[in-house]
């Protein structure tokens, strides 16, 4: 494999990892702060993609669609949290797995009823439809670069919010001890709602950014969901840094795997996960104590 080919795959891997990070960060936040395992997270990715397609068809501009779609996703997240997720806070893992599993089935049916079984392509906006040359032979599509930049921007923004704002402090406090936080008079429910809708929006954004790259099709949330679970396991539940690390690892491993060993690409990622678990049963940066 030539150097520029390796470089390209590396870039692809990092970019894929960044998208995975977007999805996984939402998942790990929801789990770390709310203590809820959310299988429907992949459905939000799918909904985001479908929204992006549907809105861009109506408005003719994908960027506009994303701008409108994001608050819509946050609102959807808020509704889901208030109506369904909130009832899981005191329940056990089985209840969480099954309720969110039911939500997945529901969202799938919803998607099918609204938009049918077809696969849809999404056009990148004209302003971002060029390519960036890399070396002599390779080029990088501008939309991919844009996606990567968005993910990085979100990552930085998340870090700032969580580390530097008062709300972020409440999030971190809620993550370690929700009861205590409530006893201090801080409305934990509000924190939970915001975190959940933020997580939903993150997954939705990833779907919207990915829509032109992967096309929009039923069940597209599934593989992303499983991979983001792998990322969260590798990185450690509740750790955004871990999600970033894990996403990079998985993104690069998967991309190189698909190129080098096409038949076993999926298996490679799981092998990496198994290896990490053997070494660190709580993930690379997971909680030190026996938590949830």
């Amino acid at each position: 494999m030539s150097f520029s080919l390796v470089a390209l795959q590396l870039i692809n891997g990092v970019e894929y990892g960044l998208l995975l990070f977007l999805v996984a960060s939402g998942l790990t936040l929801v789990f770390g702060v709310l203590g809820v395992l959310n299988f429907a997270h992949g459905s939000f990715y799918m909904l985001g993609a479908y929204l992006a397609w549907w809105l861009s068809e109506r408005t003719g501009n994908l960027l506009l669609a994303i701008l409108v779609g994001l608050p819509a996703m946050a609102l959807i997240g808020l509704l889901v949290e208030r109506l369904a997720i909130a009832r899981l806070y005191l329940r056990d893992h089985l209840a969480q797995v099954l309720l969110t599993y039911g939500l997945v089935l529901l969202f799938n049916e919803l998607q099918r009823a609204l938009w049918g079984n077809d696969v849809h392509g999404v056009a990148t906006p004209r302003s971002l439809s060029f390519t960036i040359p890399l070396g002599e032979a390779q080029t990088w599509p501008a939309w991919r670069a844009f996606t990567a930049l968005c993910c990085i921007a979100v990552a930085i923004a998340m870090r700032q919010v969580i580390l530097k704002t008062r709300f972020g402090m409440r999030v971190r406090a809620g993550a370690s001890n929700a009861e205590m936080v409530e006893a201090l008079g801080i409305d934990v429910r509000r924190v939970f709602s915001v975190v959940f809708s933020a997580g939903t929006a993150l997954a939705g954004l990833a779907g919207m950014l990915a829509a032109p790259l992967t096309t929009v099709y039923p069940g597209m949330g599934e593989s992303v969901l499983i991979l983001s679970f792998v990322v969260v396991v590798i990185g450690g539940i509740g750790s955004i840094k871990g999600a970033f690390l894990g996403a990079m690892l998985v993104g690069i491993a998967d991309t190189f795997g698909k190129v080098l060993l096409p038949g076993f690409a999926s298996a490679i990622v799981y092998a990496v996960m198994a290896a990490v678990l053997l070494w660190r049963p709580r993930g690379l940066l997971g909680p030190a104590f026996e938590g949830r």
Partner: protein
Amino acid sequence: MRRRILLLAGALALGAVAFSGDRFWLQFLGKAMIGCILAMSLDLLVGFTGLVSLAHSAFFGLAAYALAGVTNRLGLVNPLLTFPVCLLAAAAAALIIGWLSLRATGVYFIMVTLAFTQMLFYLFNDSPALGGSDGLYVAERPVDSRAAAYVAIWAALVLAYLLLARILRAPYGRVLEGIRGNEQRMRSLGYPTRRYKLVAFVIAGALAGVAGYLDATLYGFVNPAQLGWRQSGLILVTVLLGGKGTLYGPALGALLLAFIEHYGERVTEHWNALIAALIIAVVLFLPRGLAGLVEGGRRA
């Protein structure tokens, strides 16, 4: 006592169907009973040990594929040969996956079992040599007649129930109960809990393998959809629906789900939404499942 009579009556009724010769019922109830075996074996993990595993369908599918493999490639048909091989395959897989997964606890464990089941799904789905997404036909089934397959399934169900009930009454079963209640305390009482969990995982996986073998026998066909997390999720649904930790409850849940799936398909195109609504309703409003209704307020 009343429960025992009801179970006995149910078992006899199911057994009597074998003589009916009715093609539809043999197939339908045969499939339903396979679901019962899956549900009860998963209950061992979920209801009695407190382990929510999403890998259960993996062992079901592996044994089914193993049958297709030894029959198609090695020409083995005799159930006396094929059954032990497939059972061993499922048990061995459960040992490996269990050992790796149990290094994780709590939610990590659930996620790891999910990842493993998906890995196996993709392995079978993406390999043309293993049948790909279309699946494989079993060249020659271990048992010819549908009635004979039915009887085998019925016998397996009864034996599985008796075996699990026995295990749960024994000292081993007490340990599982303790682990479910307070694993950390069990460790400080001197129990190496991971070992016990692994054994439960292997027993459950082996029984899932039995179900898979029987499924491949009944239909003569195996496909990757049997292996994925959706299938595992459905088995979990039957456990919750029937009432986890009761053993017979999940079997009831499996029967009920089989009926709902079958008739739901006829009623509406969006029957998946129906199942989804059912699942959500059960989680929110009937957490103890059917068994909870049957037992009334007796269970603490």
